[in-house]
């Protein structure tokens, strides 16, 4: 077992290098995202002062860039849960090295997504009226409104994903606590909650993560169902569809999985984790992207088809507008969201090359952002008695870029404080997947984790 301890020491050194050393390129990244974030916040303050008029919205379509961003970022936020919770439920061993990365992706994306319901308000400074706090006038928010379901779903999902993320981090904080001095030591010892690594602690940690895995699945589905029902519940011709809930969940998974590919490639390149994130991981995530891509296309076609199917001009106007004025969005969606994945994903050689998968991840996310535009704007532009159009202004664009800036800023900041590959999970994986020689045959033996429940 000697080589075991030596190997775990190498693993510790590799994985905590990102946390302990601050390279120049990290600072460059941090400052770049910081400036983009500052530009975005500046635009938000400009919108606060001048009112919603700075966006390009008008009478029939009242929702624009903030809602599109909200749906997109809530979609990206679903990826972490899928990787860590669902794959753990399905005993997919290969998930170990990327769970921490994707859960951080979830937390950051969710923080960004949580901001947009406040940005899109007409009177942003009274956003707290949406929170059901007791007040002397006995006024409660209206729980029949899908926007309230949104607020609840996001806060529940934020709490549960932070818990899920933090519970996995405790052992790693303990490792870092023992390797750092000065204020870092104080910080990590505070965060590690006096973790000693005793068997009782490991058993309790496994219990917590088992429960969280099972409980987070319904929260993860309900978040994007409710975001879908923001539109499904209205009676706007294009939005009043019963397929919107599963359609949005698949859309979210699709862009989430794409984001996972992007993050895996970038983090692997940034922290030189070639030994930890293997081509096998890219291969499996790419397969997830492909299956969910097909599922998403099935729902997308179902939504558009069922409007065409009614032969009622009011329901078909938005489709005419989609194929007319918004043809550019449809072409970007078709090219980036359907053609690129369909061409690259079936080939194993492409699936295992990180840079190809980065390209596919980025193209999937471009497509899904355009798809959110297609879901939000054309339908609202062709209402019953009034038609309108939505031309994004510079504030719309800079709020969107500011959102990416905020996400990047948070991710680089967090990657400074937490190791992006979970140490204990990775080591646990090494032991389990040993190769056993039985007779003269080398048999890959996987000790299956005890089934949950």
């Amino acid at each position: 077992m000697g080589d075991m301890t030596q190997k775990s020491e190498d693993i510790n050194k590799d994985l905590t290098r990102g946390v302990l050393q601050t390279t120049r390129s990290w600072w460059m990244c941090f400052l770049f995202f910081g400036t983009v974030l500052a530009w975005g916040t500046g635009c938000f303050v400009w919108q606060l002062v001048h009112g919603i008029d700075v966006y390009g919205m008008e009478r029939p379509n009242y929702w624009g860039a903030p809602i599109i961003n909200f749906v997109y970022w809530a979609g990206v936020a679903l990826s972490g849960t899928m990787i860590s919770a669902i794959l753990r439920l399905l005993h997919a061993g290969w998930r170990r090295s990327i769970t921490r990365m994707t859960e951080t992706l979830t937390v950051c994306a969710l923080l960004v997504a949580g901001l947009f319901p406040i940005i899109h308000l007409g009177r942003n400074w009274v956003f707290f009226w949406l929170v059901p706090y007791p007040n002397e006038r006995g006024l409660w928010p209206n729980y029949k409104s899908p926007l309230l379901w949104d607020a609840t779903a996001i806060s529940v999902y934020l709490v549960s994903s932070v818990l899920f993320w933090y519970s996995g981090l405790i052992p790693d904080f303990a490792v870092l606590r023992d390797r750092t001095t000065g204020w870092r030591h104080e910080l990590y010892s505070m965060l590690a909650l006096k973790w000693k690594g005793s068997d009782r602690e490991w058993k309790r940690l496994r219990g917590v993560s088992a429960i969280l895995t099972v409980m987070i699945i319904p929260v993860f589905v309900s978040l994007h169902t409710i975001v879908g029902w923001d539109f499904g519940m209205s009676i706007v011709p294009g939005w009043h569809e019963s397929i919107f809930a599963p359609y949005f969940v698949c859309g979210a998974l699709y862009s989430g999985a794409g984001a996972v590919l992007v993050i895996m490639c970038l983090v692997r390149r940034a922290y030189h984790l070639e030994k930890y994130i293997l081509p096998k991981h890219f291969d499996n995530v790419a397969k997830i992207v492909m299956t969910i891509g097909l599922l998403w296309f099935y729902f997308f076609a179902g939504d558009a088809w069922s409007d065409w199917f009614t032969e009622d001009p009011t329901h078909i106007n938005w489709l005419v507008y989609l194929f007319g004025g918004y043809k550019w969005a449809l072409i970007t969606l078709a090219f980036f969201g359907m053609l690129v994945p369909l061409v690259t994903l079936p080939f194993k050689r492409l699936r295992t090359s990180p840079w190809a998968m980065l390209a596919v991840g980025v193209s999937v996310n471009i497509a899904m952002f355009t798809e959110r535009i297609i879901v939000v704007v054309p339908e609202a532009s062709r209402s019953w008695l009034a038609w309108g159009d939505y031309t994004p202004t510079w504030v719309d664009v800079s709020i969107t870029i500011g959102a990416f800036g905020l996400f990047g800023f948070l991710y680089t900041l967090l990657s400074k404080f937490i190791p992006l590959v979970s140490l204990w999970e990775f080591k646990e994986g090494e032991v389990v997947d040993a190769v056993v020689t039985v007779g003269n045959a080398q048999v890959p033996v996987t000790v299956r984790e005890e089934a949950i429940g």
Partner: protein
Amino acid sequence: MALKARTQEYLKQAGKPADQSGVAASVRTSSDRKWGMVIDLDRCTGCHACEAACSAENNIPVVGAEQCHKGHAHQWIRVERYWEGNYPNVKARFMPILCQQCGNAPCEPVCPVYATYHNPEGLNVMVYNRCVGTRYCGNNCPYEVRMFNWTEPAWETPLDQQLNPDVTVRGKGVMEKCTFCVQRIRRAEEQADADGRDLEPDEFTTACAQACPPKAIVFGDVNDKRWSVNKKREDPRRFTLLEELGTEPSVVYLKALDDEA
């Protein structure tokens, strides 16, 4: 009109939809009054006097050419002109569209802060200082009659002298719509209570109905048969806008008549 006939027959057979609207049943239509309006499209000459009277009565801000270009105009009642046919046999129809004070309003359940709710007198009331500006009600209104304050409204001195103190001046970020001149309803009710009597029929009316030269708009209490609005509601030319959406609008239109024969 196949669609309408089918709805009628469908509702009759399948029973009325369950009584659920944005407000608990106890609050809804508990008082005996229900305000309604009749707009006779044959009389309406499209002169927009109602739009001017409404702007004067309800402190509607003037937003300027650029905001109009961006589609941010503020008219609570707008008189739409629909073209039909091509030169030379072309027709133009005038259609005043205002908040229909729906009995079953799609904008009520979706407001997260109860800024718009259904009051006992059958009005869809807008609580301005409660509105946080999510604009979901604007999306969900099929008649597109909800106007949003995209920027801070401004009246240069002395135009601010003309502001009507009975109506709140809305700030930026608040949704607003026709309220059937609720300030006039309240003033008439208070006056009646002060005199210790009930509201007499046709005692008061809304700003647009009062200004309309051809008397196309008639406003009144639909539950009290003595008001003149009820006689007009039985006119065989009656129809309501987008009735198939189940919004139960309280504004009844009377068809215009063409005599090309």
